[in-house]
């Protein structure tokens, strides 16, 4: 049988690429960058931060697009993490399936609310 591990691993075809492990790191990095951008924008504000200064941080179009991507990343990241938790402690299978479905509803609902806030800005 052909060797398919180590440096000889097949890197084409389905089931290769952005797996959960990598998705968790990519989404985390995006949220890290977002955190730093918001932090820098907050630190660049001179004087006390009121409503105008705070809302202004998120109001530019590129920031809205970035925030949208970060909300998607957050939901994806939280889904991978919570699914791992339920896979560890959610026994028996029926309980796990129920918890996973409730997690999805919770996360998708939160994402919808966050998008709604973002689009009103």
């Amino acid at each position: 049988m052909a060797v398919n591990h180590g440096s000889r691993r097949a890197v084409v075809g389905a089931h290769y690429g952005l797996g959960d492990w990598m998705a968790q790191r990519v989404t985390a990095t995006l949220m890290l960058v977002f955190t730093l951008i918001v932090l820098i924008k907050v630190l660049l504000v001179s004087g006390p931060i009121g409503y105008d200064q705070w809302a202004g941080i998120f109001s530019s179009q590129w920031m809205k697009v970035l925030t949208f991507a970060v909300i998607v990343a957050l939901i994806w990241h939280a889904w991978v993490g919570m699914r791992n938790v339920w896979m560890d402690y959610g026994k028996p299978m029926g309980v796990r399936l129920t918890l996973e479905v409730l997690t999805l509803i919770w996360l998708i609902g939160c994402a919808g609310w966050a998008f709604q806030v973002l689009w009103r800005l």
Partner: protein
Amino acid sequence: MSEASKSRPEFRNLNLFRDVRTYRLPLAALVSVLHRASGALMFLLLPFVIWLFDKSVSSEISFGQFSAAFAAGLWIFPAWFIKLVVLALIWSYLHHLIAGVRHLYLDVSHNYTKEVGRHTAAVTLVLSVLLTLVLGAKLFGLY
């Protein structure tokens, strides 16, 4: 069944109070446990975080409601309780973020020895608690 296989210890049905408390908990394991706990907490409080985001950016009036939650309380919760919950969120975010950066560092450095694992775990714990104290002092109006 032979005598040897009968006497083998069976690692099933671990008792939380009898067995789990005898486990050693190295710093790296503590960081790992807290990484999961902080993630779960942020997952459960996600609607509260979005509520804070909603109120803080939507309008001048809602910004006032956002500020009032920290000054006069929210619904049945007094202001100190809201601040305590936000403090828990601050710690959770910082710990989760720094522990995540630790993972990324260990991924790219290929440098995972026991010592590095222990050292980076200690840095994670100290840094997250220190930053939480700095931001927490601001939250409770100490400076």
